[in-house]
């Protein structure tokens, strides 16, 4: 199952990705996290790694050496690829958790991010997982990735919604775009302080035909870990993510 974690910037996509990844490990599942955010660079820290993997963009030379390296076909030119096909320097592992990164914007005036979009789209489309493996894609903020067709290769969209009107608006837009690609969409509420706010947000999402499958509370442990660039784990947010993963797995079984 390939799950794309989407939503407004700052809604908590990387946090939810990290929480779900840790929960998946504790259940003995193989978990591949795909860092598809070309701007933010701290996901590896949230997942407890000391340094990030070499981005897959480097396989084709990175933006700088793209033209030179493009002349030699690489593993990404194959029609399918599994996790074991990803060259080891581009895949870092810790306690069953695996992380790959598509690429990051590094320099001013370096040009557009289109090559990263194509690489991301093709990687996700070609990636084949075994039954007990899950890929969680920490997607870039907003909706542009739908225009680029990056979500073609994923199985379902998981929306992260924080208590703000803007977050609801982006969620509604994503629901429409994902539905246009026949991708099932469900939502997780994040940064929730009270049941009243949760009910209000859930009601708003219901009017937009979006089902809520979990609620992540505002957790001081998560806040501190994010502030200090530490691994996220433990605490009430972690336990709440367990329910989200449980719901995702049971929905996936029903779809099969």
């Amino acid at each position, binding site marked *: 199952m390939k799950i794309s974690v989407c939503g407004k910037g700052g809604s908590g996509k990387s946090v939810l990705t990290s929480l779900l990844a840790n929960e998946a490990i504790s259940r003995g599942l193989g978990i591949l996290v795909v860092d598809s955010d070309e701007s933010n660079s701290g996901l590896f820290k949230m997942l407890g790694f000391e340094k990030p993997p070499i981005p897959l963009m480097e396989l*084709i030379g990175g933006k700088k050496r*793209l*033209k030179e*390296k*493009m*002349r*030699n*076909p*690489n593993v*990404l*030119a194959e029609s399918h690829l599994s996790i074991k096909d990803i060259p080891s320097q581009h895949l870092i592992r810790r306690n069953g958790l695996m992380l790959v990164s598509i690429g990051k914007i590094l320099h001013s005036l370096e040009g*557009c991010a*289109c*090559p990263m*979009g*194509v*690489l991301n789209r*093709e990687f996700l489309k070609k990636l084949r997982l075994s039954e007990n493996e899950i890929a969680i894609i920490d997607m870039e903020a907003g909706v542009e990735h739908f225009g*680029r067709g990056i979500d073609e290769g994923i199985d379902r969209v998981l929306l992260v919604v924080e208590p703000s009107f803007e977050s609801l608006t982006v969620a509604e837009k994503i629901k429409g775009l994902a539905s246009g690609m026949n991708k099932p969409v469900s939502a997780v509420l994040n940064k929730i302080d009270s049941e009243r706010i949760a009910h209000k947000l859930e009601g708003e999402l219901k009017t937009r035909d979006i089902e809520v499958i979990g609620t992540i509370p505002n957790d001081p442990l998560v806040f501190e870990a994010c502030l200090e660039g530490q691994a996220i784990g433990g605490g009430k947010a972690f336990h709440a993510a367990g329910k989200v993963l449980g719901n995702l797995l049971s929905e996936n079984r029903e779809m099969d």
Partner: protein
Amino acid sequence: MCLSTVYMNSGYEEKEIMKDVARIEAEGKGFWLINLFGEREFIEGSIQTVDLMDEHFVMLRKGKPN
């Protein structure tokens, strides 16, 4: 998406030649097409249309330019 799909207009159909083309080099009677993943193909013809705004495609056609 800046990367383009290259087609060949044979006069009776428009056939896709290569997707995600990142570089096109003119040589002799045609062009080398190279995609992002390093695949290469030489195709004879001339350029009919280049659309860099909406659909991002290059349409080639048989023969020399008009």
